[in-house]
């Protein structure tokens, strides 16, 4: 019995000691963990909602196909609808293009470095995406999230929300289009000057390779119009 008691006390003491050294003794950790739990719960909810939406969109597609078979006029509209879905990013797409990789560089641990320029920021991703559009990209994704006409880049500290999906570094921006044109646009010293300079200063990763075939997923978020009405 004495041995059990001594072992228990020793184990408890060691555990307490290790815990004390691993976790700061303030309620900051508890607060952070509560916030992290909330964010994780929201991400899970959103993932489940995206799953529901995907199933409903499949049902809509099947019903559209049925309706399209009813008349020549309906078939023509269904084909136009399918084409528009392709153009709007609502279907998966493949083709040649470019893959751009971005990853955080090295923290110089200098007091003067308050802007955290060694990190990839949401504006960097936005700039790369914009550059790919300017070079004729037909479809773009960031960490497998399609950029569609309604997409917004939302800053969350050093992370990014794209289409409401939480993305973190390292990032891969994929673009479908003319790979050699993408390559020359990205190589042009006049483009992405800030990112390239930070890449040299902090070893922030900025690399790209042309690809013979890239697979980009369909947009899986909300695509609802409630207020804008097409003018007659």
């Amino acid at each position, binding site marked *: 019995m004495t041995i059990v008691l001594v072992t228990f006390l020793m184990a408890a003491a060691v555990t307490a000691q290790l815990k004390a050294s691993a976790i700061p003794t303030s309620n900051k950790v508890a607060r952070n*963990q509560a916030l992290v739990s909330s*964010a994780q719960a929201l991400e899970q909810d959103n993932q489940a909602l995206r799953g529901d939406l995907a199933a*409903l969109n499949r049902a809509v597609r099947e019903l559209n196909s*049925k309706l399209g078979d009813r008349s020549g006029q309906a078939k023509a509209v269904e084909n136009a609808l399918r084409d*528009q879905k392709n*153009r709007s990013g609502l279907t998966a797409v493949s083709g040649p293009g470019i893959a751009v990789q971005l990853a955080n560089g090295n923290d110089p641990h200098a007091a003067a470095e308050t802007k955290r320029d060694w990190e990839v920021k949401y504006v960097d991703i936005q700039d790369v995406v*914009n550059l790919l559009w300017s070079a004729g990209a037909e479809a773009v994704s960031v960490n497998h999230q399609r950029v569609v006409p309604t997409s917004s880049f939302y800053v969350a500290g*050093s992370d990014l929300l794209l289409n409401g999906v939480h993305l973190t570094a390292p990032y891969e921006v994929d673009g479908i289009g003319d790979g050699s044109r993408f390559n020359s646009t990205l190589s042009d010293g006049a483009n992405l000057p800030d990112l390239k300079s930070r890449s040299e200063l902090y070893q922030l990763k900025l690399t790209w390779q042309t690809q013979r075939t890239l697979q980009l997923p369909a947009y899986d978020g909300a695509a609802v119009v409630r207020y*804008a009405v097409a003018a007659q």
Partner: protein
Amino acid sequence: MQLNNRRFPPLQVASLLLIVVVLGFLFAVQVRSQATADKYLGGQDNVSLGLLITGLSQSRQQLSDARTEAQQQVQRLTAEAASGANPANALQQQLVQLEVIDGTVPVHGPGLVITVAFSLHDYEVQDMSNALRQSGAEAIEINGHRVTARSVVGEKSGRATLDGQQVQAPYRVTAIGDPVRLAAGAESIAASLKTRGDVAVLQQSDVKVAATVPDRPVIYSSFGS
């Protein structure tokens, strides 16, 4: 030495092992949970986490609304399929919705107009349109140019360009969407720009966005299902 020769009752040994295992497990769970939190936080402070939660909540609301809308659409289309009517109209409505999203048709609806009297940089134009989309804008026009997330924002001779066309001050930014959300977004845009000159936000029950996006050829893409 005495201990080595001593025989412990099996129950005592089992209890001892159980305690050690349980303590070890609890400790591992605590440390792993902290490690997971640290990895997820990635050095983020509470303010950043707050922003993340706000963004994720907005997304949840949009996804939930979209699910309700899709459920209703399935019901409508099922009824349409059961009836003998010409289904072209039901399909045409969906097509028009996507054209609105894509920016290929002129639109109107409730919204607001932001006027900015001074010159903006390309990144400011980009940030402004991005912030409006985040605030639920369904259609945006800046000085007669339709703007979506696919618009190319650039700068030429010190002036911002949209899809290769120069846009210069004064800027008239028209956005259509949920009036409440849009107003909140527009006010924060205005607040961030006001230190540099005149910025005004005017809410309207019906505004027109007449411009459409330029045609984009599709050459390299193969579409799946």
